[in-house]
């Protein structure tokens, strides 16, 4: 089954590539559909169709690039895209800072009640978003933060999950490294910044990617706290386009492509890091 030292028979190799090829075909088919239909005219989305991506009928006769500009400008996706970018950036900076500070403290500093505080942190991981949704909405309304950047970002400026991940890694850094720096009179903040963070680049990067992906993908919370277009993120813009654009499939698909492009770009640039860390720890995205 697995890890056999003997070379595999050719039949096995053929079957393996066949199975993996079918899997990859299915994984990529919806993306092909998205691209093909984003470039069709409206009438082509109805008349020029085929279930087979290798058939020319699956693709547009002539790519309609104007679909993208129509969504980007006409449906204000440029604005939503910018909103999502700012929301993700603010959340990322905040949660990286709070998480690495807390993770460093839990991993390397001694203070009374440390373990208790850490387990209380972990408790928050069990609570589904549905449970905190209503009270958090009321708190944000009370603070007057609906339709504002603060309402979209502040609740996500810390994550017990990231703290947990970073702490696991920081704990493996030998104390002797930190002791030397301490002898030289370096503060804990300085040690975190100039010793721990450079060593922990890989896990910090993983956390950064997870955070970008989760704030870029979030839908439920922005649906609740955003009523006007001012801070509407791209997921809500896309969901509205789907329910309101009527039969204009090519516009929906163009909108969908725009909204997943940044995540795919980051993913492809850093694929090894991301694939390894996600498959190693059963991380929830």
């Amino acid at each position, binding site marked *: *089954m*697995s*890890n*056999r030292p003997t070379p*595999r028979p050719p039949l096995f190799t053929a*079957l*393996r590539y066949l*199975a*993996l090829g079918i*899997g990859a075909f*299915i994984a*990529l088919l*919806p*993306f092909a*559909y*998205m691209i093909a*239909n984003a470039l069709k005219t409206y009438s082509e989305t*109805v008349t020029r169709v085929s*279930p087979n991506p290798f058939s020319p009928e699956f693709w547009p006769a002539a790519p309609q690039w104007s679909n993208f500009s129509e969504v980007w400008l006409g449906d204000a996706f440029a604005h939503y895209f910018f909103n999502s970018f700012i929301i993700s950036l603010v959340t990322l900076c905040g949660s990286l800072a*709070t998480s690495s*500070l807390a993770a460093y*403290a839990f991993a390397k500093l*001694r*203070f009374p009640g440390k373990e208790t505080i850490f387990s209380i*942190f972990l408790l928050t991981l069990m609570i*589904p*978003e*549905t*449970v*905190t*949704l*209503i*009270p*958090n909405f*009321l708190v944000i309304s009370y603070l007057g933060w609906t339709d504002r950047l603060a309402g979209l970002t502040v609740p996500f*400026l*810390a994550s*017990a999950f990231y703290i947990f991940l970073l702490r*696991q890694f920081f704990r493996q850094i030998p104390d002797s490294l930190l002791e030397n720096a301490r002898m030289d009179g370096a*503060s804990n903040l300085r040690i975190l910044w100039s010793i721990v963070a450079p060593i922990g680049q890989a896990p910090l990067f993983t956390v950064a990617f997870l955070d970008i*992906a989760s704030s870029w*993908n979030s*839908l439920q919370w922005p649906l609740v706290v955003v009523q006007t277009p001012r801070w509407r993120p791209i*997921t809500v813009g*896309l*969901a509205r386009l*789907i329910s309101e654009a009527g039969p204009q499939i090519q516009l929906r698909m163009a909108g*969908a492509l725009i*909204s*997943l492009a940044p995540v795919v770009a980051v*993913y492809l640039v850093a*694929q*090894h890091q*991301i*694939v390894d860390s*996600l*498959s*190693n*720890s*059963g991380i929830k995205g």
Partner: protein
Amino acid sequence: MRHRLSEAISGYLFVLPAALVLAIFGLLPLLYNLYISLFNWHIKRATFIGLGNYKEIFGGVAPFALLVISVSLLASGCALVGKNRKLLVRLLALFLLACGAAGLALDLPQINSLGDSDMLRSFRVTLWYSLGTVPIQLFFGFLIAAALDGKFDGKEAFRVIYLLPYIVPAVATAAVFERLFSLRPESWANQMLALFGSHPLQWLREYKGIFELLFGLAPTNGAGSLSDYWSTWAGGPSLALVSIMFYNYWVFIGYYALIFANGLAAVPRQLYEAASLDGASPFTMLRRITLPLVSPTTYFLTILGIIGTFKSFNSIYVLRDPSTGGVTDPMSVYIFFQFFHGGRFGYAAALSMVLLVIVVGLTLIQQRSMGKRVFYEQ
């Protein structure tokens, strides 16, 4: 001593920012939610009604008590089966399980008629959704993991492709599936059917159950409340929900495969060598070596998948069709709409406390039996 003190002070200061955010937006909301659930809170707070919202959910004290008793009987029965192999204990466990099941069989129709039948439907949807997705994702995930095992050309490319559906925004990919499984004759799913000479289906718009469509197991009417209620289960998950399951397979099978592949890579190869020297067939090795050794991964993915269906939101929000009358809405989505469209804050808060109990229960089962081994040491 002074050094100790300053270290402790930095410790607290470093933890403080995260602690503030997590306390205000992660933990205290739990208490606040409980508070809200005790009110008749319709956008604005109105009268205190105590457990009134919970009564509305379960239809009174008696059905609720019977539910708690039945579930605890089932749970203790499962715990006994897991621990002990003595015949007498097994018989006792079987007895407990039978009592629990009978209790549920009598109680759910009761809750359905006295309490919130929509909540019960959303629970049924969640259950169908778990049953329809997790086993299939495990099976195909394991198959692909087996194909991914070892070293070969193009392995990295396949891994990158298989994780892609999991990584990208669900709203965007659900938008594609909303088209692939639309009721229009030119949709991808209907074109595939046409290849086999079949008539187009309604897919995401079809509220009828698949067993009803396949075998004609339509819900009966007028045969008494007990069988009446259980006949609503006989229709099976709606075709709309099954279409959403296809989306789930597409997102999660690759992810499951990568997690399984890691589990497979950790199986010591000497075991296979020794087994093949003893003349074991590949099937025996699969059954006696591979499956037991990856069972922690299987278990982890199972619980993660079930909890996932109780939390699911984004894809269903896009894929659901309001005209199907909620046959695609698991509990999380039903609660959201009670709150967001219905404005019933107090009632939705009470519903979410019920959801919390279920999710925490599942999480505890996971951590009790193996969470530490699988998860925390990675």
